[in-house]
């Protein structure tokens, strides 16, 4: 009934086509995974792979089950997740606020830019021992590490996103005599939001890395500490099991933020991303 004028829906059939290809590719991916695991298992059983270097998948699997059944895992997991999420929220908040402040004033941007470039160039992991010295063996040092390492992706994307408002939209708001506040909240910020979310996705993974690295350097609890301990005890099955668990958690966090991204930024054109 409403399709009286111009029609705009060749997109629909195209996405169906993409879905078909994707399904076929997903099957192939799973097949490849099974193949690799089988080869790994066989190579371990016939003694080509030393169990201290690479324990067999079945060994890793049973170690994973064993760890998941133990209560101490959740204690350490809780600590690491707390550090990660606290670091992520504080780091992202600071990144977005500072990104907005820096973008709002060209002079400030030019003055601060050299500092930003230098701080960005610092390999943040190298700061971990310093943070332990400053904040001790507790979670604070790890949170600070997570903040430091997850700050930049969101910060840079916030600045780039706020700059990406096109000239004609600015002119439109100008011609409508928009106040600065309205231009920011109704134009600049929503325009920047897809960029900010892309930054947040990287930042979340980075925050987890920050927390783990912090725990490596000095901690009495957390998954990083547990990894270090098992490695020291040559419990290789459990070391790999922890890596599996960490990967699953990182994946879950990523899926969560991706879901949020799709919910909040429903208008973004994602066809090009696949």
């Amino acid at each position, binding site marked *: 009934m*409403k399709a009286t004028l111009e029609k*705009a829906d060749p997109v629909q059939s195209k996405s169906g086509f993409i879905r078909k290809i994707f399904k076929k590719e997903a099957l192939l991916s799973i097949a490849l995974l099974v193949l690799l695991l089988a080869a790994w298992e066989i190579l371990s059983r016939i003694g080509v792979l030393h169990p201290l270097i690479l324990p067999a998948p079945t060994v890793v699997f049973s170690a994973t089950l064993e760890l998941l059944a133990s209560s101490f895992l959740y204690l350490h997991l809780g600590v690491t997740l707390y550090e990660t999420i606290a670091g992520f929220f504080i780091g992202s908040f600071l990144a977005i606020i500072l990104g907005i402040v820096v973008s709002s004033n060209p002079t400030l941007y030019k003055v601060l830019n050299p500092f930003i470039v230098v701080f960005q160039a610092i390999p943040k992991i190298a700061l971990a021992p310093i943070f332990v010295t400053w904040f001790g063996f507790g979670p604070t040092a790890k949170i600070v590490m997570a903040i430091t390492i997850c700050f930049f992706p969101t910060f840079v994307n916030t600045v780039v996103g706020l700059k990406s408002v096109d000239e004609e939209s600015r002119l439109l708001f100008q011609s*409508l*005599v928009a106040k600065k506040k*309205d231009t920011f909240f109704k134009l600049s910020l929503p325009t920047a939001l897809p960029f900010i979310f892309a930054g947040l996705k990287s930042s979340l993974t980075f925050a987890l890395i920050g927390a783990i690295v912090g725990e490596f350097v000095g901690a009495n609890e957390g998954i990083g500490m547990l990894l270090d301990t098992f490695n020291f005890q040559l419990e290789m099955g459990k070391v790999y099991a922890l890596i599996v668990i960490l990967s699953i958690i990182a994946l879950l966090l990523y899926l969560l933020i991706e879901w949020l991204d799709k919910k909040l930024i429903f208008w973004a054109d994602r066809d090009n991303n696949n």
Partner: protein
Amino acid sequence: MSILVNDALDRNLETNYQIEIHNIYKSFDKRDSAVTVLENINLNVRAGEFISLLGPSGCGKSTLLKLIGGLLDQSSGRLEIDGHAITGPSKKVGFMFQKAVLLPWRTVQQNLLLPIELSKGNVEEANARIGQLLELVGLKGYEHYYPKELSGGMQQRISLARTLMTDPDILLLDEPFGALDEFTRETLNFSLMDIAEQSGKTVILVTHNISEAVLMSDKVVVLGINPGHVLETIDINIPKPRTDQVMATKQYSEYVLHIRDLLGVGRK
């Protein structure tokens, strides 16, 4: 003394013009030197007139439109709307651009409400207006669509409706249908002519399409480049409302050929 008297006399004679552009210069600073883009522009527009600013790229026609809309300041000269100097964007003026610039996170309805929100207008009154305006631009029932669900032509119709939301006296249109295909463009041109004639609004249209300018306008201002200056202001004395039939008349083709001559296009 006599100069002052003359000037006052001129002003009195000009009082029935809605827009007065007098001896406008505009230059932009580029690196060390200033580049003049508009030189000695004069133009008077009566309320309800349909004016086209026609010329090749770089003739400063968009710059002139932005000056009238208060989005830029002239380097020198006098620019007035209803006898008042233009000091910035005004509510008497509605702008429309080559791109529809709809906000993708807002529905058609929310996009149309934007000008009202920004000017702290009455949203309820505006909501009642939306239905009428959508009907006017031929998109009745599309309130809850998102821009990405609409074609380019439909988006420009919404953009036109948004320009009309605040009911401005003057429409400044910067190649509004320039990015659309020929057929959609023609359809929208006729819609625009209808709207202009029915509403009695003043329209200033920037275009580089000669036949479009002649067909639609009461007056075509032909601009040349380096720097932008008025080659000739031509009154199009073809009665309105104009239909396709106009294009078959000798009068119409004479205007078109004359402008082609002025701009030096085509093979002689």
